[in-house]
């Protein structure tokens, strides 16, 4: 499968051997790009080192920051400080107010709902309506399906089924990522697509959720972060002398 992307690979950044192992497995599974969450205060040399390791495995690094704000104010502050430093911004929506703010803010790329308690997952119709007007996509992390079992997994699948149905209805983009913490939680595209059928995401949509959708988000953000970007719809085509001269 072309342009296979895993937007959330949780690398143990301090452990070189395990990091190398996970990147090797990602490459073997056919991924072309991997999104790696970095600490908010990460230094540029860490990113550069990581990029070199990724390139050595034939992978393209997508820098990502995971925000877990307690209030909409915290979210806005974090976005102001961090948006231009990372290619991807995801928000762990732990309250309804944060979820709503994240869905309508154009600087947020991914909405994540980590809880398995249906009352603490805020992706309802109102949230989806806001997300469809903005740019945020719903991120489904497959590792949570693998980690939970029994009644917890039943609840999680049920929540995901409802959320995916709402996202499909309001045309909110869906992204499937692994959120793997070790090589045993990493899965290939075929497995991801099959697992997505558990919560009624059709194969063609699931395929897009691991290829086209994440690719378009990354492409859009890279364009925005490039020096030639001025504003939406405006970019520098050529630099030269002033027209008057």
């Amino acid at each position: 499968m072309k342009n296979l992307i895993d937007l959330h690979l949780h690398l143990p950044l301090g452990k070189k051997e395990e990091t190398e192992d996970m990147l090797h497995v990602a490459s073997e599974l056919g991924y072309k790009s991997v999104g790696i969450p970095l600490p908010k205060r990460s230094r540029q040399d860490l990113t550069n080192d990581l990029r070199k390791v990724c390139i050595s495995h034939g992978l393209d690094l997508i820098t990502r920051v995971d925000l877990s704000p307690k209030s909409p104010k915290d979210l806005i502050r974090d976005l102001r400080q961090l948006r231009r430093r990372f290619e991807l911004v995801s928000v762990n929506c732990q309250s309804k107010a944060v979820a709503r703010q994240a869905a309508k803010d154009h600087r947020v790329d991914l909405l994540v709902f980590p809880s398995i308690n249906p009352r603490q997952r805020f992706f309802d119709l109102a949230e989806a309506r806001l997300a469809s007007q903005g740019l945020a996509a719903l991120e489904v992390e497959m590792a949570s399906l693998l980690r939970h079992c029994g009644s917890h997994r039943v609840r999680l699948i049920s929540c995901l089924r409802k959320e995916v149905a709402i996202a499909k209805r309001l045309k909110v983009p869906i992204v499937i990522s692994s959120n793997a913490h070790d090589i045993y939680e990493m899965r290939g595209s075929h497995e991801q697509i099959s697992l997505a059928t558990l919560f009624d995401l059709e194969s063609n949509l699931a395929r897009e959720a691991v290829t086209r959708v994440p690719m378009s988000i990354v492409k859009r953000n890279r364009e925005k972060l490039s020096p030639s970007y001025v504003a939406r719809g405006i970019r520098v085509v050529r630099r030269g002398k002033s027209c008057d001269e």
Partner: protein
Amino acid sequence: MHIDSVQHLDEKRLMKAIWGKVYQLFGEVGASQTALSKIDYNEEQAILVIRCSHKRLESTIAATAAITEVDDEASIALRVVAVSGTLKALRNKLSKRQC
């Protein structure tokens, strides 16, 4: 499927884990519809060949993908290497990959 595990796993334990996960996710009726059976297991290359109904291919792959441990101890990941309608085509695909 390629089996990624540090521990040595015999085919009985593997198939028990797969059946267990199929039961867990789809119940007895769903499990019966998969028509799951083992064809071959190459311990050296850690390649397991299984047969299932093509109508329940996605369910079978979902069940094998959901396996993360065997007998609550060995960490494991089962990953699809190739899917084919006939064993001959499957073996061709596998030999091409090894080349």
